């Protein structure tokens, strides 16, 4: 497979029939701004897809369409071969697509176990709907142990946790219910080396258990460690889509640099020294 040519030539027909998620010919504009142009993407069961792109390339728009926050202008989304139309994030979640946002959507003032159950708390039954705390604590403890997330105690408030631990809790919440595809929006952003290692291990563990994921990041060295396949999004178009095993960090770097040069030559990007202006 060669690097696909520009302008949305990433072949949709190459999407395997057993894809758990397929995005076909999706376009999205915001006013005059074209955010996505005929984007095709798929995730196979158990696969970890890395989605790379510069700021403004359309990564978050694509992410928000897949998770139901935005609706595409054209094109369609298929979950396990069935076409779906997400009206909301909750709708997407019901179809098994869950997202860990950059802001993590955790409540700092609530303990870890309550955050794991946020919006789906278990109760003792009856009209008062009192919380089944001990049951939630026990299940939360067991689950965090099972996916090897280390926290001081499930009773600790989330605000006392480090950035990496919070990210881990957010990932744990998303995966606790059966989720078909997990979207991770820059899970390693603003994290130190040790914290990053913690999250990388967690993602690898989940992948080993067969969890399908899309990991969005700027940093493709991280993605090389994590992903089975990499897709590059540039100016709203998928320009590169390859198995990690079929490429190398060197090739990818070359590709990104040549792409950057091409943009400089066509006058779309300024050179660092400003000489591209004339």
């Amino acid at each position, binding site marked *: 497979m060669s690097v696909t040519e520009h302008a949305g030539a990433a072949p949709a027909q190459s999407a395997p029939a057993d894809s758990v998620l397929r995005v076909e010919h999706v376009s999205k504009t915001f006013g005059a701004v074209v955010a996505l142009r005929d984007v095709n993407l798929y995730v196979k069961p158990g696969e970890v897809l890395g989605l790379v792109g510069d700021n403004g390339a359309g990564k978050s728009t694509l992410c928000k369409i897949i998770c139901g926050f935005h609706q595409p202008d054209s094109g369609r989304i298929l979950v396990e071969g069935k076409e779906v139309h997400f009206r909301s994030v909750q709708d997407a979640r019901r179809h098994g697509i869950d997202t860990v946002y950059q802001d993590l959507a955790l*409540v*700092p003032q609530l303990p870890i176990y309550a955050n794991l159950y946020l919006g789906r708390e278990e109760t003792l039954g009856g009209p008062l709907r009192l*919380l089944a705390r001990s049951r939630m604590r026990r299940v939360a403890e067991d689950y965090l142990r099972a996916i090897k997330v280390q926290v001081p105690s499930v009773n600790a408030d989330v605000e006392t946790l480090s950035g990496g631990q919070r990210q881990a809790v957010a990932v744990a919440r998303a995966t606790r219910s059966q989720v078909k595809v997990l979207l991770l929006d820059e899970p390693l952003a603003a994290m130190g080396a040790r914290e990053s290692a913690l999250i990388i291990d967690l993602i690898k563990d989940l992948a080993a258990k067969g969890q399908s994921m899309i990991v969005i990041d700027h940093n493709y060295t991280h993605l090389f460690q994590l992903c089975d396949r990499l897709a590059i999004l540039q100016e709203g178009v998928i320009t590169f889509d390859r198995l990690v095993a079929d490429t190398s960090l060197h090739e990818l770097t070359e590709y990104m640099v040549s792409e950057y040069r091409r943009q400089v030559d066509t006058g779309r990007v300024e050179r660092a020294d400003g000489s591209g202006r004339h």
Partner: protein
Amino acid sequence: MVKSATTAAGPLEAPPTPAPPTAGWVSAGRQLRRIMERREIAIFLVAILLFLYFSISTTAFATYDNFVTLTQFLAPIAAIGAAEAVVLTTGEVDLSSGTAFIFFPFVVYYLWANAGVPLVLAILISLVCAAGFGLINGLLTTLLNLPSFVTTLGTLFALDGVMLVTSNGVQETLSFSGTGGSILGGYSWSEILWALVCVVAIYYWLHHSRFGSHVVATGGNLVGAAEAGVPVRRVKIWCFVMIAVVSAFIGIIDAARITTLDPGNDGTQEMFYAIAAAIIGGTAMTGGRGTIIGAAVGSVVLGILFDGLYIKGINAYYFQLVLGIAILGAMIANVQLRRAAVRRWKSIRR
């Protein structure tokens, strides 16, 4: 009165286990630390200090009769304060609670004394009207995306207007007789007991129910809670309904005790005392953090201050000034004691 407050304060009642001379020190220290960690502890200490101060410096403070007066004064503050603590936890505030406290007894009066509706039914209808009033507060705030400070300020004046128009500004006498009257407000301790019922119910609602978890989530991270599937608008609306009903209920109890309905009072003082009780008890104005026990103890502090200063015979002109400074002092002491406790706890943990 401190008795009643500590009943609401539940977990605070357990004192640190007295340490045996040798081996017990470590565990006693740990237990003390765990208690000091609680947000309500500082205001609880302030309450005890004030109580001791007034008990020692005056002879009239620590008496049965004064405790009756004191609890009757603080009962509405405790009930409405606990409700305000919930509303504050969602990141909102209800300025109209005091006006609901004053107005809804009038509804009972109109129905029962004027229209001849049976008392129990009149009270129920009045409470349903209060729920409707809370619903308006909630809908205006959530659907129009207005700050509740603005919406409830508006409904405060509007409800006060309704009260003045319907009553023609005339005071009325609302006097229940018989056992029902005693239960409602005639018996010396009935108002504080009803307030306690409200506080305990709200305590379980906020700290032990699924809904309470959603209240904290709504105030702690509005967007995140919504993303996680918490119905944040519905949560806020229910909180406004709850506080309106609680305010109306304790207002009816209060009216049954005083037997006079005064449309000249717009209820803002009661509202400010209630919010002050919630905040000096450790509830954050920024949302996400609320304590019902703290609000109850906060109301006790306000009650002791008010009553104690009165007994000490502070000059009427100076009274408000002294009360204001004392409230500030209690609040500062609360924050400082809490900070000291947290600092100490952190240094020990390291």
